[in-house]
């Protein structure tokens, strides 16, 4: 059966989802969205726990996973991953704007 999944996943901070959605989509990333700011501590911790479970399962099956982080949940996510034996995720390098946009028209 044909399955076109790219087997690459970006774990993305809520604040960065909208601005980076197009870029990540163009690079064939599937996305796991981190919880938004402003939730109570218990809900946030439980949400990060289930996120870590998703990540651990993908890592166990050799999917590429990167983190697109704004620092909001960094420590808590690393702790949740560590509890499952998963090391911190590599950071996604946000792509700079195309230099062609910086070239003045002649």
């Amino acid at each position: 059966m044909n399955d076109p999944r790219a087997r690459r996943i970006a774990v993305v901070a809520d604040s960065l989802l909208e601005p980076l959605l197009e870029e990540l989509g163009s690079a064939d990333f599937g996305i796991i969205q981190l919880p938004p700011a402003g939730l109570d501590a218990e809900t946030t911790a439980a949400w990060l726990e289930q996120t870590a479970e998703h990540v651990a399962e993908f890592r166990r099956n050799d999917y590429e996973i990167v983190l697109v982080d704004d620092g909001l949940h960094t420590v808590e996510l690393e702790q949740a991953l560590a509890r499952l034996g998963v090391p911190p995720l590599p950071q996604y390098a946000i792509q700079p704007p195309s230099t062609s946009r910086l070239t003045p028209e002649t």
Partner: protein
Amino acid sequence: MSEDAPKRVAFIAHCLLNQNSKVEGGAKRPGMWEPVIDLLRERGYAIRQMPCPELAFGGARRFWGVREQFDTPVYRQHCRKLAKLVAAVIAQHAAAGDDIVLIGVDSSPTMGIDFTPSAPHWSGKPDIVEDDSTLIRGDGIFVEELKAELAERGLPEPRSTGIRHWFADYDPDEELQRLGALLR
């Protein structure tokens, strides 16, 4: 969450933003299901991705399944645990007066909204060559648990629909029209 003016918020099935969470053979796109994502952005909806109960429970290498296989007390407890998280976020949006919609996947035993797959005879050795399940009317297991959780919290059910990209007679135009009506 901010105290800004009411927003438009779409709670979507995990796989619509992450096709990797589908069962093997079930992905339609490399990363995400763009027709829905593009429409949500076009209509100004913030995206709230829900967890994938099947991935968390059965893993990335789980077999395809139907409602009768998943409808167990333990799987419902698992779904309810995740539904409580989603309901907590919905509650905050509801309190802010936000417009909330729910988008599931109508070929899923877990995330179905209007349809869910059924095959009472599926069991045992996983060697079914042809998918002879049928789509029956009703919610998936997680959606049932989410609606029950919302009811317990006194929260209204969001307007909802399901993506039907695995239907044999899938009609992208019909789906866009149905989604367009939902995202009013």
